[in-house]
Each structure stands twice: as C-alpha cells, then as structure tokens.
C-alpha cells in the first residue's frame, strides 16, 4: 500500500471535487509523504481573487452590520504561515484580503484588473435591485 503521511482532518467542497476528479493528485497533495506542491495561482485565478478581495472590502466599508475587525481576524487567523502573519500583521482589511488571496508574483499586475471588475460589478448587479 502507498505510504500515508497524514490524513486530512477536514474536507471541503474543493477537496471533494479533487478527490473524485483527480484522485491521484489528491493523494499526492494531501496525503503523501513529501507531498506534491500545489500548482501556482494562474493569472486568471489571480484576477478573480483580486476582484473577490476588493468587492468584499467595498461591501464591508459600506455595511452597517458587518464588523470589519471580525473579518480582519478571520482572515488573519487563517493565514498559512508565521512568515505571512508577521508580514501582514499591520495591513488594513482591504490589503489583508488582497494580499492573502493573490499570490505575490501577480499582485502588481492584477490590482487594476480587479478594480476594473469591481467598478463594472457595482454598476451591473451590485447596485441593482435583486428582484
């Protein structure tokens, strides 16, 4: 039998997809000794993450019910490494959302694209009546 370094303590919607559609990759990334590294974020995914971060920051800024300090601590406490925790500890919520979800190599390149998508979204959907 293949060696098992560790078994996942939680499963998620994305790991469910990987497990059934990419079973060998799931083992190599999640359970194998010396696991295979995760693929780096592509530019399209980075743009999507930039948009996500910026629109969330916009919503929080304009909300009277969402507590920015709570969201900040949720994101900060989920940071993967101590190095990131040290690097990001003084960031504003908007920057923390952005930096924690967009990989370093893409940050400069995708910030404007994320902003452009957010402006488009605000005028198309976000600010429109849901019904």
């Amino acid at each position, binding site marked *: *039998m*293949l*060696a*098992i370094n560790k*078994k*996942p*303590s*939680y*499963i*998620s*919607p994305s790991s*469910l*997809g990987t*497990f*059934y*559609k*990419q*079973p*060998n*990759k799931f*083992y*190599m990334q999640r*359970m*194998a000794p010396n696991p*295979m590294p995760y693929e780096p974020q592509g*530019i*399209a995914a980075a*743009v*999507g993450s930039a*948009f*996500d971060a910026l*629109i*969330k920051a916009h*919503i*929080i800024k304009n*909300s009277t*019910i*969402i507590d920015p300090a709570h*969201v900040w601590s*949720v*994101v900060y406490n*989920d940071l993967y490494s101590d190095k990131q925790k040290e690097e990001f500890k003084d960031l504003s919520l908007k920057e923390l*959302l952005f930096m924690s979800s967009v990989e370093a190599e893409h940050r400069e390149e995708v910030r404007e*694209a994320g902003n452009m*998508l957010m402006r*488009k*979204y605000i*005028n*198309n*959907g*976000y*600010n*429109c*009546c*849901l*019904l």
Partner: protein
Amino acid sequence: MLPFVDVEIHRKFSLFLPKCATPIPIFGKQDSAVIDPFTDTKCPHDWKVSGYGNATGVSPKPGYMAIWKDCINEGSHKKYVMDIPLEQVDPSWATQVCTYGWGMGIPFGTAFPGYIDMLAIRPTGIRVARYRGMITPEFQKIVGENYLKMWTAIQNNSYVLSLGENRLTVEYLAQFERWY
C-alpha cells in the same frame, strides 16, 4: 442593491447525515451571505469570475435570473424559472452552495436558495449574470453521500488501496489529471 449580511466566512463544522453515526468534518470558505427577498431568509452567495485572459472570452451559463451589461438589465435566460434547481445551472456551484448552506445552519434535507453572481468576460465587454437556484433535498442527499463516501474511503484506506501500487505511478498519473 444586494442585501449582503456577511462576507469572508470561514467555518469548520460537522455534517451529520441521517442514519449515519459518523460525523463528517467540513471546512468551507464562503464568499458571502445575502438575505433572499423571496423567502426573507439568509442564504449563501458566491462570486465567479470567468474569461479573463481568454482570447474569445466566455458566455454566462444558461439559467440566469438576470443579466446586466452597460448598466442595463437584459432580463432572464429562457431556461430560468422561479426556484430552478441550482445543480441544473452547474453541479459544482450547487455543491459549493449546498455545503455553505449547511455551514450556515440550514438543516440537511431542507430546501434553500443560493445565489451566484458570475462576471463573464469577453473582449467585447463584461456581463454580470445573477443566478438564484434552489438546493433541493434530493441534491443534498447526493452531496452528503459523496462526502460520506470520500470520508469513509480515506479513513478505512480503501481510497489509497484503489490507487496505483507505487508512488512513481501515482505521481505520473497525477500530472495528467485535469478538472475538465
């Protein structure tokens, strides 16, 4: 305006399925939650951005409730009906929203709505398609069973036993596995 009530929700919870003694530990990072004006209940919402960097771009998936371009609502898709099951739009979206709904405390087997806003990018412009679909009890049962099968197979090693016999083979095969 969309009635957002929460964003960036990270949650760990145990999924309890009927007639099953094993709780399944689940972790989800949910984009946001909105109040559904049709039912006046809190439900999951997610964003999808698609088509960036693609020469031809992408079209919105069929089944949207509304679509906007240049600040104009162009109406709903011909396949849209009130309470369309979200899995008819996209099963992976529905799986995600289903999981987040459980994490929000919606009981397993109770139908609930979920929202997706898709930004569909094309060289000619960007459209925002809004999907409102139901997570049906039948679909929840399928998703719950998939989680249970996965969790059980990991715990009893049947999953690892189903793979190749040695690491080299598995590593080789993993390189060619794609989502689609």
